[in-house]
């Protein structure tokens, strides 16, 4: 009998197939990113006529010529949804990128200087995490007069905190590594050590954090617009589409809300999965699975 029966025990925590977990994850990252990029490009460069007002085809149910149906002005919901999602992705990318940059700078400052700087930044983090996001975004967005800029700044201002805390912890832990002390002893400057030891170590965490920020940013943008405090009504944003659909849902025009909502959910899920798959590939803590 075997010490451990290899086919029927908890030691069998993976099996060797033609594709290992990381290769699957890599495959998914490429596929998911490709889908999102195509969607964003199509949405951005789509001519405005494709969702123009057409009173001849009001309230059309989903069909082959109108995949997602039309609304009360006869606009093609499929193209409106694409346009709205592309806009959401654009705002999300912008917001996530800027807030991750803030996180990188503040996290590094906090870890390197310590002391008062550190306490101050930690206090800011707590302040930001202490207020419910949606309320903070709402206040910032309204006080900046709403619109694309208001929403983007609102989302930026609320999303840097988690990643800052992560960056701070990573850099603090790195700072006390023997190999960093030893490198100082060889006469290398902080700049060289930062470039050669710190950045390669922190970059994967940063990229994963950035990608995982995207779904949050997109949902918050859509949420605030849905509530009427975000993008103006004439913009085909996903939040506007969803809030308009609420008026028609009681008369049975389900497609106005269903398809845009579903697509929004799929996009957010893809972002989330791409982030998780990236972590599978880049995160050293999981690297042995």
């Amino acid at each position, binding site marked *: 009998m075997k010490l451990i029966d290899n086919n029927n025990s908890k030691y069998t925590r993976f099996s060797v197939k033609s594709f290992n977990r990381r290769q699957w994850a890599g495959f998914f990252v490429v596929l998911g990113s490709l889908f999102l990029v195509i969607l964003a490009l199509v949405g951005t460069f789509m001519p405005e006529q494709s969702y123009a007002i057409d009173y001849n085809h009001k309230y059309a149910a989903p069909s082959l010529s109108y995949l997602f149906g039309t609304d009360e002005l006869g606009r093609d919901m499929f193209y409106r949804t694409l346009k709205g999602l592309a806009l959401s992705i654009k705002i999300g990318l912008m917001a996530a990128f800027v807030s991750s940059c803030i996180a990188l700078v503040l996290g590094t400052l906090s870890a390197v200087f310590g002391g008062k700087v550190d306490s101050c930044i930690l206090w800011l983090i707590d302040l930001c995490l202490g207020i419910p996001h949606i309320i903070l975004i709402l206040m910032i967005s309204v006080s900046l007069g709403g619109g694309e800029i208001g929403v983007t700044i609102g989302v930026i201002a609320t999303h840097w905190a988690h990643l800052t805390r992560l960056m701070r912890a990573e850099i603090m832990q790195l700072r006390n590594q*023997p190999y960093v*002390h*030893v*490198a*100082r*002893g*060889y006469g290398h400057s902080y700049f060289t050590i930062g470039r050669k*030891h710190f950045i*390669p170590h922190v970059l994967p965490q940063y990229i994963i954090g950035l990608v995982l920020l995207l779904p949050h940013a997109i949902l918050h943008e859509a949420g605030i617009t849905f509530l009427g405090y975000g993008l103006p009504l004439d913009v085909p944003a996903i939040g506007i589409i969803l809030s308009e659909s609420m008026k028609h849902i009681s008369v049975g025009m389900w497609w106005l809300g269903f398809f845009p909502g579903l697509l929004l959910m799929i996009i957010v899920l893809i972002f989330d999965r791409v982030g998780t798959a990236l972590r599978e590939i880049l995160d050293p803590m999981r690297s042995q699975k």
Partner: protein
Amino acid sequence: MLEVSNLEFSYDDGSPILKDISFSISKGERVALLGPSGYGKSTLGKIIAGHMNPDKGTVLLNNQKLSKYKGYKPIQLIYQHAEKALNNRWKIKDSLYEAWDIPVELLERMGINQSWLDRWPNELSGGQLQRISVLRALSPKTQLLIADEITASLDTITQAQLWNVVGDVLDTNNTSLLMITHNESLAKRICSRIIQIESLCTCT
């Protein structure tokens, strides 16, 4: 040459570990710091090498603070666990030449095989990694080498090999040695003077 005076150090929680420590090491001398763990031997080593700052007291090399020396520092510390002293995302050769321009002849003398250079740290054994780590600290510019239990987790054959070469290089460069260890027989083999850590420390 090395002058340590009135060194004091406490942990973050305030419990003292080093109290009023003073001693000196002269040029080319080999000194062992002997004693069990818990007396702050490693902390003392890190403070002398400038990897940590003391609460009080000074460390002077040729009447100068270590921070006054630019470039490759004349005091080098080797850690017990080589795998922590090498960045595990770097190939061996990158870690090796991060330190100084090591001549090929010295690689051979240290028993480092050319084929190791293109590998990753997790592909070499503890003894092989320690050879890399030791060689990084053995530049002609090194005036004092601090060896913190560098062979404590190695087998006795590797231990003897390693100290044999280190002793040679120390002689060639007239480098002083501060050896931190709990192994009395090893200390007696290598060093001419032994300091018992208990005699330095008033606290446990």
